[in-house]
């Protein structure tokens, strides 16, 4: 195949770090993030802008990185799921996701979390309906939507400083179980 594809050296600011990448004109941002920078937390699912799995923030706005040319993003502040946690310290949204079981298989979680971050940075106290509206472009095939909405609302509470608990809270169902094998010696 003729290798006459047009390419430019470009500088990218991703999660606060600058990377220089030789980028072909038709490459998408998600391709550069995953295949060139190794930032595989951002996922490709539908690959045509219909599911939100590839969502990253550009200058604070959620965008679909499978529908965005990498060439357009030079010099802009790109934030991916990898930029959210600081070493072992999780972002409050991620903590909320753990507590509320926002993930099932987890493939959609990075995209949902980035969309949620875009929402919560603008709207500190969203209603349930505002969450639904803002996240309706993201698909979760496990159908975990109710838990995802709960995750975003809990994250909002944490980010407003109203819930500082780090440990998951659940009363459980209590009760006892019968240790049959012990009973039978």
């Amino acid at each position, binding site marked *: *195949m003729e*290798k006459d594809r047009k390419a430019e050296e470009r500088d990218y600011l991703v999660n606060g770090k600058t990377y220089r990448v030789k980028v072909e004109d038709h490459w998408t941002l998600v391709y550069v993030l995953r*295949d060139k920078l*190794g930032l*595989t*937390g951002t*996922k*490709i*699912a*539908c*690959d*045509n802008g*219909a*599911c939100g*799995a590839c969502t990253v923030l550009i200058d604070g706005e959620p965008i679909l990185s499978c529908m965005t040319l990498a060439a357009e993003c030079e010099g802009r502040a790109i934030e*991916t*799921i*990898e930029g959210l*946690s600081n070493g072992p310290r*999780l972002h409050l949204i*991620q903590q909320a*996701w*753990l507590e*509320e*079981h926002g*993930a*099932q*298989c*987890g*493939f959609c979680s*990075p995209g949902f979390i980035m969309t949620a971050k875009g929402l919560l940075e603008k709207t500190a106290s969203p209603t349930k309906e505002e*969450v639904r*509206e803002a*996240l*309706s472009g*993201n*698909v979760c*095939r*496990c*159908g*975990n*939507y*109710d*838990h*995802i909405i709960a995750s975003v609302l809990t994250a909002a509470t944490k980010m407003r400083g109203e819930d500082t608990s780090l440990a*998951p809270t*659940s*009363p*459980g*169902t*209590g*009760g*006892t*179980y*019968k*240790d*049959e*094998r*012990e*009973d039978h010696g």
Partner: protein
Amino acid sequence: MGRTLSVVGKSVPQKDGVERVTGKAKFYGDVMLPGMLHMKFLRSPHAQADILEIDARKAEAIPGVEGVMSFKSHPKLFRRDLHYVGDEVAAVVAEDEETAEEACDRIQVEYDPKPFVLDMKEAMKPDAPRVFPDRPNVRPGWGPGFKFFYFSGKDPVTGLWLKREPSDFHGFGDVNKGFSECDVIVEDSDLSQGYSRVTTMEPRGCVANFENGRLTVWTHTQGLHQLKNDLANFFGLPRTMINVVSPYTGGSFGGKVDKFFVPIAAALSLSRPVKLVFTREEEMLRGWARGSLSRAKLGFKRDGRLTTMEVEHWVEVGPAGDSYPVRNVYRHTGAKLYARHAQHLKITAGVVFTNRFVCIGWHGYGTPETNFMIETVMDEAAYVLGIDPVELRRINHFRKGDPVASPRDVKVSSQMSSCGYEECLDEGVERMEWNKRWDHPNKKTGVVRDGLGMDLTIHGAGDGVFSSSIVKVSPDATVLFECAIADIGQGQHTVQSQIIAEVLGVPYNHVHLVCHDTDSTPVSTKVGGSQGTWHQGKATYDAAFNARAQILELAAKKLGKKPDELMIKEGLIYAAGKSDPACTFAEAFGNVPTIIGVGQTFPDGREEGIYPREQGAHFVRCSVDMETGEVKIQKYLPVQYVGRALNPKVVEGQMLGGAYHGLECALLAECIVDPKTGKMLTYNWENYKPLTMLDCDIDPVIVEIPGRDPSHPFGAIACAEGAVDPVCAAVGNAIYNATGVRLRTAPFTPAKVLKALGKI
């Protein structure tokens, strides 16, 4: 002695949740290896054709192309006969995906196109074009070696059948005699669920590498060791020379069963890593399910007892011949859910081949279609009999000890281990305000009308072949837990780890799960058939119990007590009744560096003739616009009896997912093909629309009755596929309750509603 639960029963976070929410979870698609090649398939443009000739020379000449594979080079992997638009013609391995795609375009293929058939009813006609020249399109039963069974000779004490013999239908009694003795007979036919798609977030594929004489395959799977064994058998490799790596699977729902022999064969012959990732269009081409056509005739006594059932059920399987969905007709229908008073049963069922894509499993695997049939006709019967739909279910639902006539039971028939239907119905009736809100459709007026619908679910659980778990306990009371069970989002990594923590008496965060590949784990059951919590759970329990006994033995020696006078809590050893710890693990272990516990579950409850069934009642309230035909779900309430919820949030998640997939099938999911060419028109997520957050509001209800089910150490029964099975009929029943018209073909799109109303 009862033990107080400290970890089981709590919604502790996912065991591998941090990886999933930080993007650090490495799915197979995230694996990038030095020197990795990429594979692309060339697919058939014809719905039915033979390949006359393939010329790959132009493709092979492109720089960067490492190889072209077709029936010529790999007759075991490719066929000359093609049976759907998208069937595999050839594959290219190249330095990058773009080069592989370009090379596919340059392969010259001469096809001999043939007549094809795309519609299930058309395919059933005797003069229809055949999908496979050597066999008819219609095949009774589920596959070669299949047998229908006739059951007879009931044990007067247990009610179990004692005799099972081959027959040309499945069942018992004599339906002709049965119907002649019935007061009311209700029959309906042409009940059909649309051909719809499992479609997971993560596209299917794999990365294969052959290095130092060992094959490593990174992929998604529902059974790591089962896949390893399949690969060993196919390629003639020793099992120990293959490592299947699959720590995460981005959703599966029964659909990720591909074994990807083609890219693995390429990696084996090139000794370089090869990666294949399906595009979304390829994802949509392979893996349809649910296409069904059913007829049910139910005979009742005046008081509502269902005594006679005759069922005919056909499943469209495309050209693939994955006929498993048919098998579940027995596992559901009247043979099980409403067999309580049944004296006479006759089921005939089979598969229909068409040239539409490939049928594989999806969430429920054949059961949703049969549930739709039986629960639609039960609902019709309730109106005919003048009995409340809930009451009709109360009269007939399966109860503990009732016999199942299943061809799969090792014994002739088996009994259900516990029952929670009454509690589920009570809960649903109360939360839905059923008695207050339910009204006959004749009394509804206005443009937008509300309707209530409900039905029951039953699903096999407690199957499984072999499960094993290993725990290695260190003196610092941390635990390595080796378990290959696949977590495809359903929470098995979490639940199995909770069992370990609970039984060993250590904190949940002391349990480190080793699960990512076959090299480092013992064999687990394949997750499928909703068997993880039950089958694997028992092995995990035994592994922990075994290790605990050894620890208490050591502690007893050190403390001069008997093991049964000691207990473990929060990773410390206590004498019974004492609030201060007697010793640490390290003190008890002495010179012993590690304690190893092993647990295994051999074939399952079927052996014992008693095993659990997933159970529940689903309720729905919808509104129907009589002018636009739009159906809106106001409230969807899956209520399921789970014995004990080991992790309530995980169980809720299972119900959310099941109801979500069910609602998708009920409201809008359908495969659409171009009748002229056989080309799929619903090839992406714009044309085939997944439900979003705006489309569904599901309120799952867990019914726990700890101690009721004796077949599991924690009294847990499954909650998984049973959550998808009843949704379609529940919605259809609610639409009938709102409008007075019965919809027989799902999905219930506005056009179908208007047509049923006689408005278009």
